[in-house]
């Protein structure tokens, strides 16, 4: 129906606007950062007024919130969860430990740099980030979505082999279904 560039632009704009105002976050607390999610969702900070709400399963979710450090064991599940999510999807790295390992820089069981394994759209730093920081992270994500710059999923699809190689390097026993969407 939509052929020429201008109308495509308009459709994109409307779609991005809708995506921006309806962010469903997967309820998966991967680390200790999950403790600041309830305050963010409840009365004082109330993320729902920005359209942020929880989703119970990965099929329905838009945003994978990596709340803190990822152990190798969790990383495997997180990758599976991420691949089950439907496009367009975004990843928010939450807390210093997703950025550079934070205080677990010498631990043998946690990954240090999240964006080598999953495409991260927005990082929120701090340990623990306050709910205001979380909200500002969501606002940043909204801004990126509106500008059409939050294309982590596309990046993952294009560089799947690179990501796979990184993932397989630390997950020795790789029994996972193929990426299928």
């Amino acid at each position, binding site marked *: 129906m939509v052929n020429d560039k201008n109308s495509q632009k308009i459709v994109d704009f409307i779609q991005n606007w*809708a*995506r921006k105002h*309806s962010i469903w976050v997967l309820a998966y607390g991967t680390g200790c950062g999950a403790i600041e999610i309830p305050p963010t969702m*409840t*009365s004082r900070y*109330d993320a729902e007024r920005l359209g942020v709400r929880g989703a*119970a399963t990965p*099929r329905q979710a838009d945003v994978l919130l990596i709340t803190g450090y990822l152990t190798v064991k969790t990383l495997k599940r997180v990758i599976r969860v991420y691949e089950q999510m*439907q496009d367009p999807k975004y990843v928010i790295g939450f807390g210093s430990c997703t950025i550079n390992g934070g205080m677990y820089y010498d631990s043998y069981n946690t990954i240090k740099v999240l964006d080598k394994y999953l495409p991260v759209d927005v990082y929120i730093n701090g340990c623990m980030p306050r709910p205001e920081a979380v909200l500002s992270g969501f606002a940043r994500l909204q801004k990126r979505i509106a500008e059409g710059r939050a294309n982590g999923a596309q990046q993952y699809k294009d560089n799947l082999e690179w990501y796979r190689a990184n993932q397989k390097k630390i997950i020795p026993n790789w029994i996972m279904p193929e990426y299928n969407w």
Partner: protein
Amino acid sequence: MEKVLLDILGAIVTFLVAFVVGMTYGGLNRKITARVQNRKGPPWYQNFIDAYKLSSKKSAIHHGVMHHLGPAFLMVTSVMTLLIVPVLSHNNWFPNLNFQGDLIFLLYIMTFGPLGMALGAGQTGNPNSAIGVTRGLSMMVGFEIPWVLALVALMIQYHTTSITGLMAVQAHSGTWLMFSSPFAFIAAVMALFGMFRYSPFDIVGAPTELASGPIAETGGKYLFVMMSSGSVFTFAKLTLYVDLFLGGADNLFILIIKTFALYLIPLLYSLVSPRYRTEQAIRWFWGWPSFFGLLAILQAIIF
């Protein structure tokens, strides 16, 4: 020929009205919930944004033909229910496809959607979905009993099996059925709790137990279809109740007031109730609601 074309046009208008009103009710639900929970809450049109976002998802995975068709089954059910229920009393825009015996047809058709959904959810292979479906079906067994009892009482009392017939009775006598057969109304409203699946009867898709149950594997466009069919069904159910018990409505404004007043009953109750277990829920429906249904039948026979 022209009549048919007009009817089709009218059906589309009915559907659109039902969609918008149902979605708005969903949004107001979230707003009211938020206010009770000391929050500001999302804007009332939040559900429209969510629906549009879901429909604009680039990918939507499905696990086979039945899973693909499940949401369609639900949608078909909602639309059929909507078209049989007379929306406004005297209005050309809202066609009235009802016929003698449509109440019995409604009873059947309202269970059809969940059955199709059950087949779809079964195909996903997700155990949560399977358990959710069994729970949904057993709960249907629960709330169908007071609901059927209430309807049968009305049919016996007024010797008609059509909705328009019952509306005519109300128009003729000047009192709503809510007052002239109160027990049937009470039983039907109690069954409404089960139909809406709000707390304490949200056992089908309970997030903390089943991770949203039958729709666990459903995302993107499928979820959009389910969401809109749910909204349409909400509107159809409420309109049916208004037609049966609150004397119908002459214009859209009155209809919205009456339906929203009805909608507030399960909504507000849901905000202060935890969830029942499945067997507790069924026991509840077979307790007081069924008792009131039986009273209604007694009333119908005696008077």
